């Protein structure tokens, strides 16, 4: 790890350690296990929206306020494919088809959006925020118009993922473990992509200096489209992964977008490693705070407020986020 990350990592680890210690003091061990798993589960969902947000912001300077919409569209697209398959198709196949369809559909849609709408605005960051906000509204309303304002009934995942197991004495749904696994896999794959492939190296180089990358003969426009599509595909996959558990409803994207933005800011915008670490941190903080506020306040107030407060504290100490560079 680079030396300049060392401090960021130490701060993050201190945060994590503090949280775990707090949980251990407040709750019995069995409950702590469930809290930690629940935190990981939430963190992974945040990560799936935040990943695209972070890469796209780093490379293109676009704060894509429609990232949450791809999460939502992924869920609806997956549901549609799941339901459209001929009768008698095994659940596992339906489920897998839904995952693939959401990913591919999200990616294609992302590419289309980047080419037609985002591209003309690269020099005007504030306008991109307005434009993507408009895009989010449009996506939301179209889904509402087609499927109605109420959510869809969650689809059934394969049987193995539809049960509970015991974790350190507490009960935990296997589907949530699946989400954790899926998130962790995607996190690892994205990190590998960024560090081990030529495309990843180009993306990271582009985050630092787009112009120079192009001057070296790389068609950066295509890399932009690909990156944007990739971010959207991850979000869409996140949406369909989460949907069997949380359902599909038009506003689901907005809820995750805010958390994802917080994750990205906390990690330091344009630092992908920061986003990965921060999403786990925020997930755990949220799960712990949820438990605390349910136990002591009788209301989930602390859950959301806590991560907002954490973000505010971190920004006051490190104005460019945990892994951000001080200069930007």
């Amino acid at each position: 790890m680079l030396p300049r990350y060392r401090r960021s990592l130490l701060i993050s680890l201190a945060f994590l350690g503090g949280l775990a210690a707090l949980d251990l003091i407040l709750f019995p061990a069995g409950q702590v296990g469930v809290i930690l798993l629940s935190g990981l589960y939430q963190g992974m969902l945040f990560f799936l929206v935040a990943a695209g947000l972070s890469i796209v912001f780093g490379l293109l300077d676009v704060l894509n306020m429609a990232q949450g919409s791809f999460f939502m569209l992924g869920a609806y697209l997956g549901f549609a494919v799941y339901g459209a398959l001929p009768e008698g198709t095994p659940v596992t196949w339906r489920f897998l088809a839904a995952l693939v369809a959401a990913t591919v559909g999200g990616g294609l849609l992302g590419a289309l959006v980047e080419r037609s709408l985002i591209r003309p605005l690269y020099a005007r960051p504030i306008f991109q925020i307005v434009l993507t906000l408009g895009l989010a509204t449009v996506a939301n309303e179209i889904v509402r118009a087609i499927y109605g304002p109420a959510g869809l009934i969650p689809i059934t995942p394969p049987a193995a993922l539809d049960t509970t197991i015991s974790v350190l004495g507490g009960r935990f749904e296997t589907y949530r473990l699946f989400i954790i696994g899926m998130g962790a896999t995607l996190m690892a794959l994205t990190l590998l992509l960024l560090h081990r492939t030529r495309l990843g190296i180009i993306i990271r180089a582009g985050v630092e200096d787009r112009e120079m990358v192009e001057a070296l003969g790389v068609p950066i426009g295509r890399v932009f489209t690909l990156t944007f599509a990739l971010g959207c595909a991850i979000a869409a996959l996140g949406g369909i992964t989460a949907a069997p558990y949380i359902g599909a409803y038009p506003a689901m994207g907005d809820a995750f977008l805010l958390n994802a933005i917080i994750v990205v800011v906390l990690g330091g915008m344009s630092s992908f490693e920061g986003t990965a670490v921060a999403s786990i941190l925020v997930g755990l903080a949220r799960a712990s705070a949820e438990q605390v506020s349910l136990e002591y306040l009788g209301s989930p107030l602390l859950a959301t407020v806590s991560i907002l407060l954490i973000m505010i504290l971190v920004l006051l100490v490190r104005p460019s986020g945990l892994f951000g560079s001080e200069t930007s």
Partner: protein
Amino acid sequence: MSGPMADSRRRGLWSPGALLAGLALLAAPFLVAGFLGEGATFRMAAAAMICAEGYTPFVGAALGTWLLLGMAVLGARRVAGANGPLTALRNHGARLWILYLLLITPFLLAWATDSSACIRGKAFFWQSVFIETFILAILAASYNLMFGFSGVLSFGHAAFFGLGAYGVGLLMKHAGMDLVPAMVITIVASAVLGLMVSGIALRVHGLYFAIFTLAMAEILHLLAANRIFVDLTGAEDGFTFAVPDWINAASNRMTFYYLSLGLLILTFAVIYRLIYSPSGRVLAAVRDNEQRAQMLGFNTFTYKTLAIVLAGALGTMAGILRGLLNKGASPNVLGVGFTVDPLLMTIIGGTGTFDGPIVGAFLLRLAEQLLRDTVVSLGPWQVNIGERWALLLGVLFIASVLIFPKGIIGSLRFRSKLSASREDETM
């Protein structure tokens, strides 16, 4: 920039300026009577005139205005002389005409809908649409002071708006305060919040600052919606509170109309004066190149604080009006919507222009109302615009960003840029 210009502009003082002055004189007794709440005879006469149905009130208002016109102009010229305070109005020709229209709008509405301006009916309803528009215009103008004139991007303006509605409501309902002290305390609280925000701006910059303010507004939003404080705030449902009779929009809606219009004018005047003051010039410098402004010797933090606190206070004032209009507050006044709306109104109208945010507010709010019940046939589909308003709005944002990057007013002004020595030239 005066001199030869003054003579050709003097005619501007004759027409809309005089109309205004006349109308103000005409309206003053009614407003005073309304404030006092007594003066029965006068009120009855006034009500009879204003509240009649059909064209009577319109003709009355127009006639009354014109009647007092000559007097007002003569008086104004005698009192003010050639270079007095009213001559400042000559820069606002078109704005004064629009203002004149807005002043007789309640009567126009009554005339156009053939209903009374004072009791439940079409005209009465449309008055409330205009009141909401004025409130949004104040909010958008205050946002523009920060974002457009000073270059401070915030995503948390709803915090100030919501603070207005909640502050005044909670103080009146639970602390048993009168309206005016409750308003004063709420504005003071908003200034404190503004100081905190600007303190943060010292350390956290750019998008980080914007997200920071978003988080701050969200915390207030969550607190307001939370069940822990249900006895105080009514949680998700919000709460209602009683307002003094003279400002109760259910009965004295026209008073409320003129009050909110007056506050919009005040907002415009405050921002206009500030931007043309020495401090306002510093704000323009900070927006253009903050570092260089520091090197010139300006403590830029002071000026950013000024912009943030003032914008916050004006936003809070809009929120107070909103609370009084609805006689209640609910968490959505703290929601992201009341940050996004003024941002969009500003951008669509024209960032960093005086009229842009106000035009944006009128456009969005009135268009929504006008199109609410329109059904359009698109081939086989019947589209109810009202139901799909949000969709249309989304498309509008996308289109306006792509087509009118400078906003409506910005684009107009850009075209007339070559007609030099306009006083807005360097704004």
